[in-house]
């Protein structure tokens, strides 16, 4: 699958919640999607700062997008069910776009483990990170 086709497919798979929050697929880097969410009132917690819940929403969606991309590479179609997520907040995400990209560290038959980083201006200084465990069920289950 070309990067453009993967981007389009992942954009289609974004859940209603992600679209409502303003999340989009920004680009594909090394086969893995970078997600972006603009700053605005709907993501704001303290004035001019992202709400931790909005940042978590971006991280989770970046994790799922990374997993869908990895499954697509293997030609697998599966339903994804969350097991858990742990988010670390490293610094306040300010009033500009936030990006996130996930890495699938383990892709098993039934479960996957994903690490996600979110950043703003400087990719080397993430504003938040997450680790996620996801259960994979047959697409028809």
């Amino acid at each position: 699958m070309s990067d453009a086709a993967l981007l389009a497919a992942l954009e289609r798979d974004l859940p209603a919640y992600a679209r409502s929050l303003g999340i989009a697929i920004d680009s594909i880097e090394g086969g893995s999607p970078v997600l972006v969410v603009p700053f605005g009132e709907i993501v704001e917690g303290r004035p001019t700062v992202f709400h931790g819940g909005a940042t978590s929403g971006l991280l989770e969606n970046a994790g799922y997008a990374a997993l869908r991309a990895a499954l697509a590479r293997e030609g697998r179609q599966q339903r994804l069910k969350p097991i858990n997520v742990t988010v670390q907040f490293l610094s306040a995400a300010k009033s500009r776009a936030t990006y996130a990209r996930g890495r699938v560290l383990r892709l098993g038959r039934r479960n996957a483990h994903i690490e996600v980083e979110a950043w703003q201006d400087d990719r080397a200084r993430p504003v938040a990170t997450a680790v996620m465990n996801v259960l994979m069920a047959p697409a028809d289950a």
Partner: protein
Amino acid sequence: MTSDLPPFDPDAAAALMLRHGHPGWLGMHYVAHGPDWVELALPWREDLVGETGSGILATGPIVSLMDMASGMAIWTATGEFRAIATLDLRVDYMRPARKGAAVNGRAECYRLTRSAAFVRGLAHDGDPEDPVAHVAGVFMAIGGAR
């Protein structure tokens, strides 16, 4: 730090804090509180579902709900509003919420140190004995220890 302000009242504060920004967009509202806990609710909405057509609330809004309930539990436990930042938040998803169901989030601040606050909580869609998610988190005071 002493203050002449009346103690933090989550019921009254919710009317202001949950009106704007991210919590306002999600439509969170106050349900109940105790000395060290606060329960908020998140109404169901079609544009917040996690899988198109499933009718089930996404996990993202549940994290937001628990983060907000945790912060309010900390202010309720300390009796004062001060800037705090979430350091670490873990959410274990027991099961999906029921289709079309609102989700309640109850967080308890079970330990306070000079600069850290420890919280635990659960999200449920009607029966707290059958939770949707369990949560544990650590928050830090912004601007130094009290």
